């Protein structure tokens, strides 16, 4: 087979994005194109999965296979796809409302499985598509443009949640910094295990508080602030230390660090666990790729299957 080298433009779908001009989500889309090109992913082997939200429309602007599912459930749909065919490159994108409010439980339970897929949180701290209500990452007391009152609910830190969930790659980017975001997304995709990337992505229409200016005053890069920063677990024994170091940065609130907080490829992935516990051929012959009949006859030997039940 001929090796194709694809460019970012090769991942652009025919239809143009329908976001408000200036929306942070454009930056993430561009970064995704770039990362896909950098990794030269086969667009027919990538499955982009999303829920519902402005952010969740992203797959329609990308030239890869995609599933635009229902609100909050992108992760389990993606998971089903990946479980059935682990050779696919599965990437989930979604908003803070989608992935952390209604979809919070699936995020929480994905990490602990360490399935080899990537979650990209397009975080604007509001519900864009339903016209500007508070998202779960909006701090208490802030009143955004379109709602009548200030937020009486506190915020959740997505990275702390990812760590709690057991994600083995945890990073944070900023949508207007396309180069950096590209790098983080590419790293997340190549990571072996469940990867989580939060990307600050201002909603220019409804979030009049957490704006470009607001973010740019607070963000900094981990590796710039501390050139010795090394989030990678190189040895089992380092796990506790690296988790504690990551936590230390994750709970930072006044300034907002960007970069990779934690990365551990020593945890077995779900595939690996499944092969050792259930089915040694799992990756060779996964559910989606098995023939189940030959000339209409089941491939399974029924009598052998029920042997211990026969009288």
């Amino acid at each position: 087979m001929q090796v194709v080298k694809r460019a970012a433009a090769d991942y652009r779908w025919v239809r143009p994005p329908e976001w408000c001009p200036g929306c942070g989500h454009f930056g993430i889309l561009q970064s995704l194109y770039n990362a896909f090109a950098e990794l030269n992913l086969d667009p027919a082997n990538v499955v982009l999965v999303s829920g519902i939200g402005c952010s969740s429309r992203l797959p329609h602007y990308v030239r890869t296979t995609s599933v635009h599912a229902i609100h909050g459930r992108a992760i389990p749909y993606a998971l089903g796809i990946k479980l059935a065919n682990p050779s696919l490159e599965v990437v989930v994108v979604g908003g803070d409302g989608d992935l952390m409010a209604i979809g919070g439980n699936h995020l929480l339970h994905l990490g602990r499985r360490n399935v080899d897929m990537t979650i990209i949180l397009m975080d604007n701290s509001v519900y864009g598509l339903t016209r500007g209500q508070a998202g779960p990452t909006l701090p208490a007391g802030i009143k955004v443009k379109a709602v009548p009152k200030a937020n009486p609910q506190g915020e959740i830190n997505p990275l702390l949640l990812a760590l709690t969930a057991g994600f083995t790659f945890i990073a944070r980017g900023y949508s207007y910094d396309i180069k950096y975001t590209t790098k983080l997304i590419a790293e997340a995709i190549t990571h072996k295990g469940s990867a989580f990337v939060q990307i600050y992505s201002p909603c220019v229409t409804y979030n009049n508080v957490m704006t470009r200016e607001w973010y740019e005053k607070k963000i900094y890069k981990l590796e710039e602030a501390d050139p010795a920063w090394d989030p990678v677990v190189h040895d089992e024994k380092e796990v506790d230390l690296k988790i504690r170091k990551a936590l230390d940065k994750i709970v930072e609130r006044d300034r907002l660090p960007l970069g990779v907080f934690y990365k551990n490829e020593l945890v077995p992935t779900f595939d690996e666990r499944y092969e050792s516990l259930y089915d040694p051929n799992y990756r060779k012959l996964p559910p989606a790729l098995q023939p189940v009949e030959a000339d209409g006859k089941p491939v399974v030997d029924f009598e052998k299957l029920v042997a211990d039940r026969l009288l």
Partner: protein
Amino acid sequence: MRISFLIGGPQGRGVETASFMFIYGVGSAGYYVYARREFWSNIAGGRHSYVVGTISDRWPAPAPGNSVELALTFDGHAVLEHVFHLMRGGYLVYNTEEDSKTPDSYPMMAKPLAERLKHFAKGQGFEPTVRNFVEYLRQSGVEVVGLPYNKHISEIGRKIGVASPVMLARFVNTFVVALGAALLGLDEEYVARGVGFALGKKADVIEQNKKVAAEAIKLVGKKMTTIQPRSPGVKRIFWNGNEASAYGKVVGGVRLVAYYPITPATDDAMVFERLIPFPVGKDAGELAKLERIGAMAFQAEDELAAVAITTGGAIAGARSATVTSGPGFSLMSEALSMAGMMEVGIVVTLWMRAGPSTGQATRQSQQDLFFSLFIGHGEYPKIVYASGDLEEVFLDNIRVANWAERYRVPVIHLVDKNLSNTFAVMPLPDPSNLKVQTTPPVVYPQTKEAEAYPLEEVVPPKLLPGVSNAIFHLNSLEHDPEGDPEEDPVVVTKMFEKRMQKLKLIESEIPPEEKVLYFGPADARRVIVGWGSTKPAILTALEELKDVGFLYVKMLYPYPVDLVRRYLEGREALFLENNYFGQLAMITRMFAGVVPTAVAVKFNGRPITTDDVVEAYRKFEAGQKTIKLESDL
């Protein structure tokens, strides 16, 4: 030949194991058994559980009625529970050590039952002791085998050299089962086979229990009958409904089951999981070189995830199913609507139980028909299909897996608690008449943007990520052929109609005999109409009720309007259902315009028995229009 029996005792303390011993033991003597388990919705704690069934030399074995000929009880509580479940001429086996107990001695007995028993005893003029109830039974023509269980077990222990109370306690099951075997004229060998099945094949355990059985058998001076060991001449299987369902999935090519535990569905998934990896057959084409092949069994965090994972699996190209019961099914509403919209074929095996809400988690009902038909917001095509016995549960699992792939719609397969906890020794069904039908995926030679929803095709082409070399978009929003969001009214109308045309396609392709079955005389003036697990009871009753037809509806949606009309035209129809509203009767009126003559319902959490069918039919004959059934076995 037909012998009805029950085995009752404290839940979670061996009575289930004893039932398996007994059923397998009798089965190993060459008989068929059809039995059902009743238990409370908590783990242990002293509630009463029992198994009721029928032994027969033919299959289908008759379904049980409201009383039995043989009752094996573990304690006084069990005697009290079943005072009204014994036939005249039947046999009660009980522990005389509990003679002086009363309903109040059993704190876990349902208070209303305790009250009813005390009230009854008062009416009869006796103290409500176990002894007095047994005496009452004796006077009502029941043969009683009363023995001091523990005393005998200790003695047997002495004989065979076992003294530890823990060990002795383990013999109770064998002891009671052996008393039953004695009454049936079966020797200890068959009890030992039952022990081997229920407790494992360890030779010393079996040997010891065989001795216990031999001693116990000697204690019984009476005999109900002598059932001769026989050879039925066909391969037989001992299984329950959950297992039949799981086997059906494996044979039917289901390779991904995602689920969240719930009674009575869990075992369907857990048996599937236990069977991984599956043995490959000799005719397996390219797979034949492998000995075993795998599958994915996945316990999700909740049912929202379970159904989504299932749908994802189907999108990737695996035959995928989820199993659940009412509460979990409710949580799948949104995703079912999506599967309809996105045109993904999945199977939901719905093990109905008594609702509403948490209801009675371990009790029977057919309450979820309406909901299955109309679950999820918006209008979309689906299939709703019901099974009525264990063979159907097995074979229908293959059918529904075929249909989900063929029509790319959600298929709701209705089964219920009654089926899940039916234990049968029965002929091994033969799946070879039923094809496993798959569609080959489209594969492009070169990467290509493909239409996921071409307007010209009622069922979209099978595009698989990573397989088809295709780039395509699937969408829960209304979309254009490319799968991108579209709200243009003209395209929207076309897409909507295209999806709905599947209903016509399904109607035209699925053969009539898979939709409805008719039993009984072709010219019967009166017909019983039923669906799902009431089938065995109705068929059994038909032996008694001459000149009656039975219209058995398996396809609930799209409703087989023409067939039902044809069978019911000009006849009187009694609809018989395990729910409150008479849901089949109502949808028959809605879809087919047929007005039911009478409706009989039972909604106390117990299945419809053969006696219930007879009772309902007699009332129907007498002109009653609405009939409530309340038997409690």
